[in-house]
């Protein structure tokens, strides 16, 4: 054990960091694209259902295949890895944003509109805060998935903990496989917990109580 750390310790820290930021970058990109798109979709529900099932189909393409598709387009390395993972983060965030915003109490939305909220104000002051718990659930789900899938980034030279796992598979060294898997799992748990914390920080005061009451 000590021997392993002496040999791979440094590398382990670097790979874990790589793994972390590939996943984080993909997730952030996903949020930046999917949340506004989800809000837009809630304005055109007919189109929304079609688009979401289309994105759902994209999701079913095996991740290895997506990585392979991306090689001719964007080459290899971290950027293609992040782009591919970004595609996977889209669906959960998009779907939850759409459903969250769509299911905001229509009475509240009508009252807001009737009192003279502009579209912007309606989204920023009412619809997003009120659908935040649902959106955050989507982000958490997609982040945990991403951390798992990020191992595949190693295939196209993206680095991360996947390097350990594939080395371990190729060299038939179970300790290397574990060295890739365990930190990835820990990373996923930590990410999920911190996002949960962030969620309760962001959830408006009045909503928290009403969830507890309900």
């Amino acid at each position, binding site marked *: 054990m000590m021997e392993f750390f002496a040999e791979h310790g440094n590398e382990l820290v670097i790979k874990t960091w790589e793994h972390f930021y590939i996943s984080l970058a993909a997730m952030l990109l996903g949020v930046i694209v999917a949340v506004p798109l989800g809000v837009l979709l809630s304005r055109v529900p007919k189109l929304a259902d079609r688009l979401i099932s289309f994105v759902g189909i994209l999701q079913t393409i095996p991740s290895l295949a997506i990585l392979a598709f991306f090689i001719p387009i964007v080459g290899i390395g971290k950027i293609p890895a992040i782009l591919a993972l970004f595609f996977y983060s889209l669906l959960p965030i998009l779907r939850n944003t759409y459903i969250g915003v769509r299911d905001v*109490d*229509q*009475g*509240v*939305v*009508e*009252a*807001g*509109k*009737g*009192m*003279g*909220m*502009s579209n912007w*104000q309606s989204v920023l*002051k*009412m619809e997003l*805060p*009120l659908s935040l718990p649902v959106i955050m659930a989507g982000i958490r789900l997609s982040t945990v998935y991403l951390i798992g899938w990020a191992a595949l980034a190693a295939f196209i030279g993206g680095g991360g903990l996947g390097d350990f796992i594939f080395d371990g598979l190729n060299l038939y060294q179970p300790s290397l496989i574990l060295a890739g898997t365990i930190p990835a799992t820990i990373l996923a748990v930590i990410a999920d917990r911190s996002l949960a914390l962030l969620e309760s920080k962001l959830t*408006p*005061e*009045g*909503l928290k*109580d*009403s969830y507890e*009451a309900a």
Partner: protein
Amino acid sequence: MLQFNHVFKTYSDGTSAVKDLNLKINKGEFVCFIGPSGCGKTTTMKMVNRLIDITEGSILVDDKDIKDQDAVELRRSMGYVIQQIGLMPHMTIKENIVLVGTLLKWSKERKDERARELLKLVNMPEEYLDKYPHELSGGQQQRIGVLRALAVNPPLILMDEPFGALDPITRDSLQEEFKKLQKELNKTIIFVTHDMDEALKLADKVVIMRDGEVVQADTPEEILRHPANEFVEEFLGRDRLIQGKPDVTTVGQIMESSPVTAQTGATLKSAISTMRDRHVDSLLVVDSNNVLQGYIDIEAMNLNYKKANIVDDLMETDVFSVSGESLLRDTVHKILRRGAAYVPVVDEAYHLEGIVTRATLANLVYDTIWGDGKELEEKVAAAE
């Protein structure tokens, strides 16, 4: 204040919700739109703040066409209260009350002050300002909903069945509170409801609609007295038409026209024999011109029989009377409040015209319960 000129609303699938609506609403008027569901009442209201666009015609607010104004600005200048209440669950009561103030970028001090001021109007303690909507009962929430509409003091308030989702007791008290508030603040109210009792209770003017058209627009009294057609009659319901009677019946219509009287100057002896003959315990005293002078009752006579000879000596001159033209509902109230057994009816010159007694009122109640008796008579006649 508010004017509808040939307003039409036709949806893209060809159904028309409102047809050629013409209406003028004065400042400070409380107008109820009422009708069966799908009659276009809510559509009409929502066209005023442009939540629904007009297809044809125009709506003027203070002589300005609403189409020429920015929809968002327009809505901020009117109050809006809906059945679902629609308080923002993530905002405190204070933030909810002054929401429109926030949209208009009021200063914090101004908003705080306004929120406190408004909460006082509905007699809720200030602690509520920092609570969240879910901590309040339905009735309290809708009070806040109403306050929110009043926040920036708009002259016009639109209300879409605001009390429809509340239990009957809460609804009743809110209606009363609100009517009082409206009188105090002199707001113009457009109030949509399907509850006729609510409309008759609150409105200065009731607009009855059917299939997108106005069937009748008038005061509650006038509608009860002269329903425009069978639809209105049916919508009001037979019970309400009968109940509505006391509202418009005058005292003259129900009084007994030959009260038992004594002339001034008559002896007590003759007065007593009149009482015995007619089985009454008091007499109205009139002079030779039939002008009411006072009354005399048997108790006073009993006590002072020895001291006096004629009715003038014992009669009570402080007599409460009503005119034949006054409305029955006011008179009933007065009789009950004073605990009087009867009220003499006089004309302007105090000539005695008749009398309303408790027995008269009992007859009226009987009529209300059993109809005017014609129905029964018809049945009896048919049976024969």
